C-alpha cells in the first residue's frame, strides 16, 4: 500500500498550525487513494507530538529525535529526511512551505530523484500524477503544474487547507539517526533576533500588519498596542522592513511569510500585489488607510478610509472596554 507522508515542524513543543494543515491534506489524499497517511517529525524529542499527530489523522509517525534539530541546519535535516523517505517509500511528501523547508527542498529532490511542486496553493492527485496550483509572475496568476514520477515533493502555502481532526491510532517508528557534527561543513554561529517563544506570525489567529502609513515611533507604538490588546502577532509590508522600523521576520508577502489568520488588520498598508499574496487567505481582512483607492480595499472584508493616528487610539480603547466587560 502506498504512503502519503506529511512533514511536521514542531514549534514551542507543538506541531505548527501549517504542519497540521498539510497533515490534514495528506490524510484527504491518502483516503482518496486507499493509501496510508504518515507523518515525519524531526525534533529533539520527536515522539512527544505523536499523539497530537494521530489526532489529526496520522496512521504512522516516523520520528527522528536528535538535539541537533533544535535549530535549523540544512545538512542534518536532509540526511534525516532522506533516511525516512527510504524507509517509508512514500509516493508524495507534503511540507508546510516555511523558510526551513525552502532551504532543503531542492537538494532533497536531487538526492531522492523526486519531482517537486514548491509553494503551492492547492494539490491533488489526477490521472496518476500530482497537480497543483502555484502563484507565479509576482503572484499575479496561478499556474496549473503537473509532476510525474514515483516520488513527488510538494510544499504547501500556509492557510491553503484547514487543519481538521481525524482521530486514529498511530504506530510510531523511531528512525535510527546518528549525525557526527564533526562532518558538518557549515556551522551555525548564532540566530539573531530570534522570535522563538512569542506569537509566531505564520501560526497566529490574529495579525496586525503595519505599512508605509506608519511613519514614526508613535505610529509603531499604536500598532504594538493594538496587537497587544488583541493578542495578535505583528506583521508588516516590505517598505517598513526596509526602513528598519520592523524586523525582517515580520515581512508578509510573496517573498516573506504567508499568513492566514482568522482576522488580519492592515494598518497604513496600500496592498501591493506581493503583500496581498501573503495574506489573501485570511478569513476576515480589515484595512485602515487614508487612500480610498488603495488596492488593499479590493481584498478587504471591511474597509476604513481614515488616518491610523486617529482611528487606532479609539479602536484600542474600545477593544479594551469590550474585553473588560467580557472578563
Amino acid at each position, binding site marked *: 500500500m502506498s504512503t502519503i507522508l506529511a512533514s511536521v515542524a514542531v514549534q514551542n513543543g507543538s506541531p505548527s498550525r501549517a504542519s497540521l494543515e498539510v497533515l490534514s491534506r495528506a490524510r484527504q489524499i491518502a483516503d482518496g487513494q486507499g493509501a496510508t497517511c504518515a507523518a515525519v517529525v524531526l525534533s529533539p524529542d520527536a515522539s512527544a507530538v505523536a499523539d497530537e499527530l494521530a489526532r489529526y489523522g496520522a496512521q504512522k509517525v516516523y520520528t527522528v529525535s536528535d538535539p541537533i534539530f533544535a535549530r535549523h541546519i540544512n545538512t542534518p535535516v536532509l540526511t534525516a529526511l532522506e533516511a525516512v523517505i527510504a524507509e517509508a517509500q512514500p509516493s508524495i511528501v507534503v511540507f508546510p512551505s516555511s523558510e526551513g523547508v525552502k532551504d532543503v527542498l531542492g537538494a532533497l529532490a536531487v538526492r531522492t530523484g523526486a519531482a517537486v511542486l514548491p509553494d503551492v496553493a492547492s494539490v491533488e492527485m489526477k490521472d496518476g500524477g500530482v497537480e497543483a496550483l502555484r502563484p507565479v*509572475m509576482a503572484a499575479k496568476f496561478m499556474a496549473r503544474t503537473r509532476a510525474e514520477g514515483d516520488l513527488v515533493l510538494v510544499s504547501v502555502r500556509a492557510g491553503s487547507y484547514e487543519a481538521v481532526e481525524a482521530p486514529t491510532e498511530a504506530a510510531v517508528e523511531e528512525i535510527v539517526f546518528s549525525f557526527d557534527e564533526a562532518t558538518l561543513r557549515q556551522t551555525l554561529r548564532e540566530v539573531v533576533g530570534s522570535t522563538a517563544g512569542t506569537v509566531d506570525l505564520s501560526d497566529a489567529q490574529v495579525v496586525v500588519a503595519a505599512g508605509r502609513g506608519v511613519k514614526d515611533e508613535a505610529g509603531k507604538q499604536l500598532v504594538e498596542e493594538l496587537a497587544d490588546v488583541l493578542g495578535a502577532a505583528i506583521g508588516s509590508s516590505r517598505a517598513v522592513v526596509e526602513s528598519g522600523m520592523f524586523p525582517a521576520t515580520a515581512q508578509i508577502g510573496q517573498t516573506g511569510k504567508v499568513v492566514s489568520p482568522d482576522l488580519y488588520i492592515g494598518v497604513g498598508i496600500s496592498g501591493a500585489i506581493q503583500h496581498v499574496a501573503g495574506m489573501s487567505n485570511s478569513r476576515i481582512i480589515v484595512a485602515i488607510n487614508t487612500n480610498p483607492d488603495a488596492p488593499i480595499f479590493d481584498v478587504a472584508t471591511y474597509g476604513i478610509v481614515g488616518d491610523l493616528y486617529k482611528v487606532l487610539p479609539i479602536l484600542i480603547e474600545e477593544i479594551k472596554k469590550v474585553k473588560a466587560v467580557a472578563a
Partner: protein
Amino acid sequence: MKFCVCIKQVPDVTAPIQIRAGELSMDAGRVVLNAYDASAVEEALVLTADNDGEVDVVLIGPERATETIRKALAMGADRGAHLVVPEDTELDSAAVSQLLAGHFKDYSYDVILTGKQAQDTDAGLAGGMLAERLGLPYATNAVGLAIEGDQLVVTRQGDTGQEIIVLPTPCLVTCSNDMNNPRIPSLKGVMGAKKKPVDSAPVAEIPEASVRVLGYEPLHTREPGRFIEGEPAEQVAELVNVLELS
C-alpha cells in the same frame, strides 16, 4: 575570491500581462535581469572590490538573452558564459540545475551565487539542486554576506530570526533582494561591457522536464467587502460590532 553568479532573463513582472486561452500574453520585448540575481551580482561585486577577486556570470537562455549577460557585465562583472537553448524551451528547476552542474565541471570557483528564486516562476529550487549536484555546502535566502579569511559568513533570513552561518569555500549561496540595492550600470560600464568576453555555446542535449505547466488561471478573488463610513469614533464602533470582538 572567484565568484560565479547564475543569472536568468525573466519577463518584466511589472509589465501588463494577460491570460489568453490559458496562456500568458505579454510584450515579449519586456524582459529584465531577475531582481534576485541582480542582488547576487551586486553582492559579488562589492565583496570582490573589498577583497580582490573576479566575478563571472552564467546564463541559460535563448540567443536574445545575451543582453541580460551584458547588463551584468555593465554592472561590473568580468566575464559571461551563455548556454544557448532554442527560443521557448521549457526547462524546470531540475533541468536548469543539471545544465549548470555540467557547466561548472569545467570551471573552478570559490563561491557560486544564485538569486533565491526567479521572479517569473518563484520556484526557488535551482540553487539547492545545483549545490547538491556539485556536492557543495550551501545556504539559501541570504540577506548578507561577508568574507572571513577563506570562509564565507552568510546571514540567512530563517523562520524565527537571522541565522549566521559560516561556510567553507567552495560553497553556494542563494541571495534575497533584501541584501542590497543593485547598482544601475554607468554609461562607461555599458560601453565597457561590449568589449568583455562572453563564451557562448549551444546546449547539446535539453534535459526532459519532470514538472510541466499545463496552463495559467486568474487568482481566486475574494467576496467583495464594504467600507465602514463615518467619523473615526463611528467607524470604530461599527468595526468592533461587526468583528464581534466582545
